[in-house]
């Protein structure tokens, strides 16, 4: 099988600017406060993913999961190292799709689809299917700024999943949807997984990751500390070596879950 994603020694740093206005900057300079600071969100990360693999990405809040997805997605570029991908990429990252607040859902659907690489014909063909999946009713023709966060995620996910991507990225965004919709989404994701799409799935819900993924990557403060089978990954994340005593109960629990 072909390699789908290569991440090689990737480092991503953010510059945190504390002062946005000239005046604030001047005051800070006088008081000898730092004007900015570098912050390493991802630290020398390397891994490869084969086409068709389904990878779970886990870690605490702020560990760099969304940042890693944006690098794979191509919205950001790494400061060091390189990211290579094969084929079309779609998905939902961080706080939802790139919608324009003043545009209606319909306009955003077309714009978003075009950005994700769909042609005009493809979009017209899939339009009904997408709208049906999103199921936002008459809100389709109101500006998305009036949407609830759930509706926002619905439309975003519906577009992304219908792109026929080779790589699909799903960040936690779906967590805002209601139960039936989430169920519909994971079922659909299993479907594209079956069709050989590479999947990157971010979730804190262990059971969901276990059912969706064949492999887990664990990020901790920007370090990739675990890369391997799902159960081992979850165990790595949730239990220290110091907590040996717990292991037995955990194993029993994990066993019961499966």
């Amino acid at each position, binding site marked *: 099988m072909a390699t789908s994603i290569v991440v090689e020694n990737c480092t991503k740093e953010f510059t945190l600017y504390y002062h946005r206005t000239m005046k604030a900057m001047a005051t800070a300079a006088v008081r000898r406060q730092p004007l900015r600071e570098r912050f390493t969100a991802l630290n020398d990360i390397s891994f490869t993913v084969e086409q068709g693999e389904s990878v779970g990405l886990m870690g605490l809040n*702020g560990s760099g999961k969304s940042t890693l997805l944006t690098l794979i997605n191509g919205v950001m570029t790494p400061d060091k190292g390189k990211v290579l991908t094969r*084929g079309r990429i779609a998905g939902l990252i961080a706080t939802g799709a790139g919608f324009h607040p003043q545009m209606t859902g319909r306009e955003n659907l077309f714009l978003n689809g075009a950005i994700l690489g769909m042609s005009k014909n493809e979009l017209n063909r899939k339009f009904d299917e997408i709208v049906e999946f999103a199921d936002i009713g008459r809100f389709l023709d109101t500006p998305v700024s009036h949407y609830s966060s759930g509706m926002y995620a619905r439309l975003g996910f519906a577009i992304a999943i219908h792109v026929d991507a080779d790589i699909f990225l799903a960040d936690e965004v779906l967590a805002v949807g209601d139960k039936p919709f989430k169920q519909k989404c994971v079922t659909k994701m299993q479907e594209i997984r079956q069709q050989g799409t590479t999947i990157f799935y971010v979730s804190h819900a262990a059971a969901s990751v276990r059912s969706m993924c064949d492999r887990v990557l664990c990020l901790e*403060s920007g370090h990739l500390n675990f890369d391997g089978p799902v159960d081992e990954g979850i165990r790595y*994340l949730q239990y220290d070596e110091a*907590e040996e005593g717990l292991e037995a109960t955990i194993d029993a629990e994990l066993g019961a879950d499966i």
Partner: protein
Amino acid sequence: MARAANKRQGAQTDEKGRRKNAAKRARALADRKADAMPVAPTMTGPQLDRHVDAELVSPSPKGGLKEVLANPYLLGLITKRFLAAQYAASVLGLMWSYVQPALRFLTYFMLMSLLRVHDGMPNFALHLFVGMVAVHYFSETWGGATRSIWQNRPLVLKMRVPRETFPVAAMIVAAVHTFPQVVILTIAAISVGWKPDFAAFGYGGLGLLLLMVFSAALGLLFSALNAMYKDFQNIVTTLMQFMHFLVPMIYPFSMIYRLRIDHPVMYEIYMANPVTQAVLMFQRFFWYPTIENADTKMPWCGHLKGNPEAFANCHIPVEFPPDMLVRGLITLAVSFVLLWLAQRIFKKFETKFPERL
């Protein structure tokens, strides 16, 4: 560096980035989010082997104007969005982009008539109009492109789209807005007997190219700068206030040309402005051919009426810079270099957009 950031966050991490209490936190998080996502059973049957017919490449857009033009459908959608956004909440819609220029035109025309600046200048209204159209295009392009990245930050931050698409769409919008003015201008010129010769077309084309390339370079550069520091859109607005006085439209070029003897440096600076040169070339294209006819020549050449040959060789004392063509070509070359540089700088800043927007 990471250490410093961690200290600020108040978190203790070991050298592998594992936080103190990481396991406990992870368990708590997993507990809280246990129901965040439901479970769907893995499908039965063997997974299909998806054959992807593509190379392993960097997922980020290559960038550059070339990639923007490679996806005309997307560019069209974004351009339409720009147009819609400008008139989203206005009743008269597109009309507004004509009311303001029309009023300004009338103001200048009346003011200059009162001041008698254009005494002896035939078809002054056309002279003024040509300049205003050119400056209008320039300011719409520069200003629109400068704001474009900032205005579209939801898309810039979330989607992988060549970021140059936004300034380019702004430039197309500027052209769309200017086009009806060009039509009116053409009708006006024809109505006063416009008969352009080959040279006029040459100058017109060169002027258009010069104006487009130069404003594209400025637009691209400032769109990136404005994403970093929002002050730039105000700087552009301020600079544009002076533009009407920096090009020869409310006063004849001969006035400037006379000054070159006493102030050669100032003259060179004035002439270095590509917009000035473009305006001159457009006047050579639209306005000059309308004044070179028998009627307008009468006040100056009437005494030669008896001698047709001498009358034909007699010209109204309208001046264009003698080196207009050479200077124009050089400026065009410089503008192309500027455009290339602007693309380079844009690319460099682009990686910083996500943190600055």
